[in-house]
């Protein structure tokens, strides 16, 4: 069984980005071999397939090539969930200033952000990281893996440098909290 084919099978079934470590563990080969084969797989897909290998949200994943977007859209008829301008603003502030409290966000924006923040938590783009050791023990918020995925980011380092707040960002680094626990659905999809 070639490592390349094994990778193809694993990345095909993976629902979230997989790291080279995870892939190596499953296949039982050293990481460097996986990295080697990932490169080859990426190249092969680029030349022969409508699929491509991407690095996203801290791992590898297979997705369709952009030129197939039209027919896939026609086939799936996916729901587009657009984010409003103010939601985007709150999201950007959370991304750069995390871990951040609601009142800190309010301060940056000059308006209340509770509604927006709640929406972002609902959409799983933002989640609670814990509580700040300050009066009232306010909740600290940060972005999720889902956020990286939805915005096609490999890590937070891909965000443009705004000349401030990177210190805080570096502190969080790319070790983002995992996706918030998802509700167990009744119908397990078997692969």
């Amino acid at each position, binding site marked *: 069984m070639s490592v390349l084919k094994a990778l193809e099978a694993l990345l095909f079934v993976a629902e979230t980005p997989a790291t080279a470590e995870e892939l190596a563990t499953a296949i039982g080969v050293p990481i460097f071999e996986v990295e080697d084969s990932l490169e080859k797989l990426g190249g092969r897909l680029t030349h022969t397939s409508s699929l491509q290998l991407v690095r996203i949200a801290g791992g590898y994943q297979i997705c369709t090539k952009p030129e197939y977007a039209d027919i896939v859209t026609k086939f799936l008829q996916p729901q587009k*969930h657009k984010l409003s301008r103010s939601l985007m603003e709150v999201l950007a502030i959370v*991304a*750069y200033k995390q871990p951040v409290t609601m009142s800190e966000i309010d301060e940056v924006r000059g308006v209340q952000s509770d509604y927006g923040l709640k929406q972002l938590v609902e959409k799983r783009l933002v989640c609670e990281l814990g509580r700040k050791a300050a*009066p009232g023990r306010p909740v600290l918020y940060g972005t999720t893996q889902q956020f990286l995925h939805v915005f*096609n980011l490999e890590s937070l380092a891909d965000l443009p440098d705004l000349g401030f707040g990177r210190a805080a960002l570096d502190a969080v680094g790319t070790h983002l909290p995992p996706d918030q626990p998802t509700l167990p659905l009744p119908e397990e999809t078997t692969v």
Partner: protein
Amino acid sequence: MAKKSELAAERAVVGPLGVTSPPEIHIECEAFQGSLGALFLCVHDHKIDLLDVPMAPICEAYFHYVLATTDTDLEQAAVALAALAYLLERKAWALIPTEQEEPEDDALSIAAEPYAHLFEPAVRNLLERREERDLLFFRWSENVRHPYELPFDTSDVQIGDLAGVLERLLARAVPDTMEPLGKPRRSLAEQMLVVLRALPLEFSSLDSIVVGEFTRSEVVWWFLALLELIRLGQARVRVSEYDVLFARGAES
């Protein structure tokens, strides 16, 4: 042991709780060692931060006092309860997350002007990335609509209908049994699975779905999970001529 009359003089000092001081209920925990009365005064006079004091040992000490004392002085017991209630309420308020501004140094408050515009490049960058991302399609996870965005339609069902159903179930329930403190409780997600399994595919009344003996809190917990399932589009509800009916699955 000193007689009541001998202690009367000692007690006849007007404190925040009146003339009677709480009985000697000894509390011992990391943050505080002493009597309930002393703790009450310390908290009352802001000499101790209640956030650092766990309430469990205090409650236990109180319960111990109540259970162990045979000839309870009702007045004393009442004062003890008042002190305990005061502490619990204060603690509860302290634990509620508040919107209060955080203390900040002067430098910060001077610059406390909105500066959201500085994030503009980031917002633009994110929107561009979003556009690129919209052209990529991943398997499953991606294409499944987010549960929170599933439309839920309760059409003609009113809140009153649901309340009526809950009331009927509660009337059938047996009183709650005492359960040991700290008993692990099922999460809502788990409860939702239980409810989901119990729901039939055909519309049925809740009286026929929920059978057997159950307690009042079980009913409430069950119903809460049911409401959440309806919200997520995994359960359906409709009113018939005589009853409110429930079924599993999304509206087709």
